[in-house]
């Protein structure tokens, strides 16, 4: 007798198990496209068998636990590669913009204007008496100073853009850390009962991966399932149920820095230098290392050129025998020179003050013009080993190499990341074919279990009808 009811009981349990499994299959199919979803399986185990005499009879199955199919080591690798990807991607984008500042394939740039400037002095050397050639010298010099300023302005614009990007990255990072702390709470509460919190863990893994893309973090999970996240070396942004925001602060010099304080309303400390990975790290590298380097090169170029020309020009006498004035108005130091160097106002107003010769009252003396035009081939850059053209051209070559390398490394990293993602999908991804098969499998089990119950029921009726 007990066997019949045991059979019915087994059947009933089996029915429920099939329903549970089918429900999990439904969950998998519904979440097929959810980002970072790991397919879930119901683990069924056999019930404790019962022994009667020589026989141990199995008591059916029960659903033990719903697991997700997930490889945590793969997740860690994905996070690391995502971090690298974020860094390279952000860097390649910003370098692509820096490269356009130096691109003379389509537009006229410094190479063109510097050339015109020196050739104008050669023309002056041909015709030192003429006002026309002096006017040309003034115009080319003016246009040259304007182009120096253009390069300076464009590089600063890129820096400002990067600052904007940083601010929005920081906002998103703060959102992620807030959500992670919420998830921490949920996961702990669920898992304290011994049940794995599959969906929440999937979501938290996704957030950690996204955080890695943005900024370099290190994280660790404790035995109760809480995760603590540290950004950079020392900024703890998630700890248990709490999270701390990173703050993007604009400094007096115009740049945005990333600040942090562990204590509410405490003193903010500038931790920008710690962030060397992820999109934030890439952007900071371009803003602070690459662009600053190019800014100082262009400043150096403007400053040295102005100094050399001035040195020669004051030795000369102008068209009416007056002693030569400074050709360029320039600042005292090289920093910021590219936006401050300008043609002397005296010369802008009166071209006859341009000096071509070293003897007063000798209109055809072109010695000064010759010396100034020879400055183009004078090695005054790079510790007196490069001319101005070589200096600028090497800048262009350098920026081209940097941009090219950044793009190529980014593409290579994309390939690596895609490979890893494919492997992850292969392990944890949902396959419709598989789910369809499982669906049929569990439905058949359901049918069979239902049949089992009917059989048990009929058997019971049979037993009951033994005695009328």
């Amino acid at each position, binding site marked *: 007798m007990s066997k019949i009811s045991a059979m019915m009981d087994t059947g009933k349990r089996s029915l429920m198990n099939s329903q549970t499994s089918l429900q999990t299959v439904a969950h998998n199919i519904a979440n*097929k*496209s959810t980002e970072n979803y790991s397919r879930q399986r119901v683990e069924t185990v056999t019930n404790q068998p019962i022994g009667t005499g020589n026989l141990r009879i199995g008591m059916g199955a029960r659903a033990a636990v719903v697991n997700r199919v997930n490889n945590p080591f793969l997740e860690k690798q994905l996070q690391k590669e995502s971090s690298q990807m974020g860094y390279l991607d952000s860097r390649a984008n910003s370098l*692509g913009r820096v*490269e*356009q500042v*130096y*691109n*003379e*394939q*389509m537009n006229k740039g410094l*190479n*063109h204007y510097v*050339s015109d400037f*020196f*050739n104008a002095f*050669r*023309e002056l*050397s*041909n015709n030192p*008496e003429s006002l026309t050639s002096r006017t040309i010298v003034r115009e080319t010099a003016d246009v040259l100073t304007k182009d120096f300023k253009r390069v300076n302005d464009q590089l600063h614009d890129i820096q400002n853009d990067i600052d904007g990007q940083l601010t929005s990255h920081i906002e998103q990072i703060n959102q992620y850390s807030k959500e992670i702390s919420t998830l921490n709470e949920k996961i702990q509460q669920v898992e304290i009962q011994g049940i794995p919190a599959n969906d929440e863990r999937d979501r938290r893994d996704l957030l950690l991966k996204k955080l890695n893309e943005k900024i370099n973090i290190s994280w660790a999970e404790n035995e109760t399932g809480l995760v603590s996240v540290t950004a950079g070396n020392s900024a703890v942004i998630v700890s248990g149920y709490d999270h701390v925001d990173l703050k993007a602060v604009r400094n007096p010099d115009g740049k945005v820095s990333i600040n942090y304080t562990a204590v509410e309303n405490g003193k903010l400390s500038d931790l920008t230098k710690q962030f060397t990975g992820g999109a934030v790290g890439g952007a900071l590298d371009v803003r602070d290392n690459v662009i600053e380097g190019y800014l100082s090169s262009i400043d150096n170029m403007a400053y040295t050129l102005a100094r*050399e020309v001035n*040195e*020669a020009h004051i*030795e000369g006498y102008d068209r009416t025998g007056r002693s030569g004035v400074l050709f360029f108005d320039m600042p005292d130091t090289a920093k910021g020179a590219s936006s401050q160097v300008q043609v002397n106002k005296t010369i802008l107003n009166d071209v006859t003050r341009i000096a071509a*010769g*070293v003897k007063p*009252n*000798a*209109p*055809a*003396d*072109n*010695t000064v013009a*010759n*010396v100034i*035009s*020879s400055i183009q081939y004078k090695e005054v850059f790079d510790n007196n080993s490069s001319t101005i*053209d070589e200096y*600028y*051209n090497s800048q*262009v*070559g*350098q*920026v*081209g*190499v940097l*941009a090219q390398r950044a793009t190529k490394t980014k593409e290579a990293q994309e390939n690596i990341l*895609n490979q890893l*993602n*494919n492997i992850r*999908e*292969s392990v*944890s*991804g*949902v*396959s*419709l*074919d*598989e789910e*369809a098969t499982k669906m049929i499998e569990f439905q058949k089990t359901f049918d069979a279990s239902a049949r089992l119950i009917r059989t048990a029921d009929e058997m019971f009726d049979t037993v009951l009808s033994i005695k009328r």
Partner: protein
Amino acid sequence: MRVADKMAFSQVTQNLSKNRSEMQDLQNQAATQKRVVKPSDDPMAAARVLVNRVDEKSNEQFIKSLNSAKSFLEFTDQSLGELTESLIRAKELALSQADDASGNAQSRRVTGKEIEQIYNQSVQIANRKLGERYVFSGHKTTTMPFDIMGNYRGDDGDIKIQINKDSFLPMNLSGDKVFLGRGLGNDGFIHARYETPKNVTEMQDYKQEEQQRLEQNQEVMGNHVDVRGPSNIGDIQKSSDVVGTNVFSILKNLQVSLEANDKAGVQDSIDYLDQAINQVVLARSQVGSRVGIVNSSIDSTQKAKMDNRIAASQLEDADVFQVMSDITKNEGTLRATMETSGKLIQPSLLDFLK
């Protein structure tokens, strides 16, 4: 290997996007006819192209300078040629009136008038202008070099023209060298230095030198007793060193001798005319050799310009045939990708289950 749906979809997307982006690059190359559109396409080529551009512009500028020097020098040459002819004519006239067999006081007076014409013409030649500039004034090209008395108001500067990256060529001949013969021998005049100052230090030295030289030359000039009139014929040095002769005073003296019927003076002036002619011919040969240098510089600079352009084109222009064939190949790849993608992602088991 277990293949999840997402894997298949993402692979299809990646492959399609890779093909399309290659196609886009090729299309860009075909449209702009340039292989290097931004420095990162080929950094070496981009930097080299810039060097080529600078060289091209400099070469154009040098050609301009050379052409202007050439016309200046050729004009000088032509003027000197006319001057030589005038002097030869003067010599013929002097020869014809040198002894009593062929001339007498009457004919000498008439010839004197003709010599006066030649004198005026020589002054005119000396004061010629090319454009707005006096050709024989040295650095003072806005001042007329000689007055009717033969006094020189220009200076002895050389106008240096840059004919290529490292060298300069003087494109003028100052009037005092050609017409007055100053600085040609041991008369105490100091020349300017030959090398052109190329940087500020050299220029400062040059400035000082020029100052000193000007003062010293003025002293030397002061010591020269420059007196006009028949009696100063004997003051012109007759030594055998190469010295300069004053073309104007020779002509003037000949004229005066003829008008005064001074046979000995006329005979002496034949020698001096010879010296004068030699001086002018010497100057002309200098000009001629400079014209030669200028011409060969023009040729080599133009060739360099052409070579430059060829090199630049090889670096930055796209090879049209290569681009077209790459585009065709890519098209085929793209089509194949799209067809097989359909086959990969469409069928699923659910289609076959009822």
